[in-house]
């Protein structure tokens, strides 16, 4: 279980996150929903250990992980725009985390991860030969392959066109459910957030203003802005 407690992040002396608290239970998928620039990506980066919090704590199963470096946290993060390694094949990308973990059954697990996202036999392909939708699936497979304790997806469908998004939302949800992963999905799109998650956390100007299921929030929004943003 992940718990973020009163987290503050300051970058170049500008406060980006202020007093953010969030809990994600085992097997739960939480969507962090907010307009662009509200600090959603920074929250994921802080949890991954890519930015250092000014104050506050990040705990995993009750243990403070502040001193655990990024590569030992066993968290997965799918980047906005995917950040696929351009000099490696699809298999090289998907197998990277397995290689870092020192697994010896990399080829088989890569094939499994690729078939889970519907990309069987894509292993030898070059990244530049993939379509946008295929890149999204490779990035998802790369994030899931090492079986991380927590999966974080940053605008997983952001760069794709509308039709593709609709099919991929369903596919992504299915992959997350099959593996019963604990996950945080960051998005600015209400429908996407609802379709992918069990619970929403609405974020505005560096703070989480309300959490709950969509119907719960709509029934009792904390303010007009939340009501307006979600309607």
């Amino acid at each position, binding site marked *: 279980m992940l718990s973020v407690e009163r987290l503050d992040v300051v970058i*170049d002396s500008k406060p980006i996150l202020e007093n953010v608290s969030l809990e994600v239970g085992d097997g739960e998928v939480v969507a962090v929903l907010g307009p662009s620039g509200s600090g959603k990506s920074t929250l994921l*980066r802080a949890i*991954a250990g*890519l930015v*250092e919090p000014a104050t506050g704590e990040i705990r995993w199963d009750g243990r403070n992980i502040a001193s655990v*470096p*990024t*590569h*030992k*946290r*066993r*968290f*997965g*993060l799918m*980047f906005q*725009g995917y*950040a696929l*390694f*351009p*000099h490696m094949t699809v298999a090289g990308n998907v197998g*990277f*985390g397995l290689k*870092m*973990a020192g697994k010896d059954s990399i080829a088989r697990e890569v094939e499994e991860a690729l078939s889970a996202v519907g990309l069987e036999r894509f292993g030898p392909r070059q990244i*530049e030969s993939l379509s946008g939708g295929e890149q999204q699936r490779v990035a998802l497979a*790369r994030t899931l392959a*090492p079986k991380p304790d927590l999966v974080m997806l940053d605008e997983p469908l952001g760069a794709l066109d509308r039709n593709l998004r609709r099919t991929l939302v369903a596919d992504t949800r299915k992959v997350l459910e099959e593996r019963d992963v604990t996950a945080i999905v960051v998005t600015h799109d209400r429908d996407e957030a609802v379709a992918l998650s069990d619970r929403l956390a609405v974020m505005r100007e560096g703070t989480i203003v309300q959490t709950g299921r969509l119907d719960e929030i709509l029934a009792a929004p904390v303010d007009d802005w939340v009501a307006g943003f979600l309607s």
Partner: protein
Amino acid sequence: MRRIRWGWLAVAAVPTFFIGYFFVYPLARILVLGLSELSIGASGLEARLLRVGWFTLWQAVVSTILTFVVAAPLTWAVSSYRFKGRRLAMAMATVPFVLPTVVVGTAFVALGWRDSIGAILAAHVFFNVAVVVRTVSTLWSRIDPRLHEAARVLGGSEWEVFKSITLPLLRPALAAAASIVFLFTFTSFGVVLILGGFRYATLEVEIYRQAVTLFDLPLAATLAIVQLLGVSAALYAYSRYQERTAVAWTLERGTNLKRPRGRTRFVVAAAVVGTLGALAVPLTVLVGRSLGQNAYRSLLTDDRVVGTPISSVWNSLAFALGATVLATLIGIMAAAVITGRSGSLSRWFDLTLMLPLGTSAVTIGFGFIIALDWPVDLRATTWLVPIAHALVAVPFVVRSTVPTLRSVPAATREAAAVLGASPFRVWREIDLPIVSRAALVGAGFAFVISLGEFGATSFVARPGLATIPTMIFRLLTRPGATSFGMAMALSVVLALITAAVVMAMDRARIGELGAF
């Protein structure tokens, strides 16, 4: 039927004649002379070629490796972090690269490192660190930082991420920097001639010795052929490697630099200060030692050589002015020809003009003295010096003007033509104003190149009209502490003049310092 453009042909004729007569023809004479020597098979020739060739090759390889080792910490710091004085640090690291090789050689003599392989390697590293820092950091600072972060999140330690992500992505820049440094050190002349003593000679130095000191022209020609083969092989290997490793990937538009935090701040500071401190040592010692013994006053009064040492400054400035005018005029004409027409003819023209860049200056100078006795004997004319310098500089003028000319939309010229401008008027009214700024950059390059040129000059300069570099060399090889002091003082003068020109270019914001 296509109309023949006489104007185009007339403009094309000038650079064609220049390159043809002063470069292609002398090269052909070298080939004929050298190959005839090879066919005779003089005794001991093979062993000699092998010995000099082997030394040239291994010192170039070792120099290149050492340059990368020394440049690595500074390259890492300026590629990954944003800190106060970052741009200044880059500029300071570039100083040795813009210095004439004779000045670099003299600075290491001032350190007391003469006649040793260590001095040669150290001087090569000193001169070339900037090539690695600038070439590699340009790419490194633009790699999408999320690739690094993605690999970290996937469980890679800093070292594993560097090895499997950063290093492979840097391969094109590493290969480019390595081939530039290799070519510079493979064709190194001034540094090796000054620091190598009698024991160490690269092909360049051996060509000079055989031709100028021992007057064995056929052997010098054979050495020049070996040298050309070596350079061509290196260039070919590099272009093949580039084709093979081409990976299409997007770079960030701006740089993505972090502020260093915690312990990293000290490591970055140590890398920057340590490297710049080490680079400053030879120059500081040179300036310090030049201040003794009234060396600067002696520059004005000493007359044991033909003309006082200070006269070489006036000679050099006059030659540089001539070379600059010549190189700029021919370069602009060549650029007009290259951009005036598309098609294979202009591409071929472009390539031919770049050839002097891949040829060593010593080969150019050597070619002049064996070939320019036909149809009239030009070898005794004063003009050979600025012509040789212009030949070295023309590619730089062409390279700085062609991109600007290409950026002029065709519609602009067509509009002027429709409004009644003749082709020449179009060029004068549209192209010339646009190209003049770029041509100024090229002119600046030409001036700096001419001031520091030593390889070709050492063949063609007449004893009575020494340039600053040839005068420095003469003073260095003359016995006596006063001569040595004057060599150092004159080196400082040359460094200051070069720095002034480079700073003026930079101040006018007309060129990137490291646009090699």
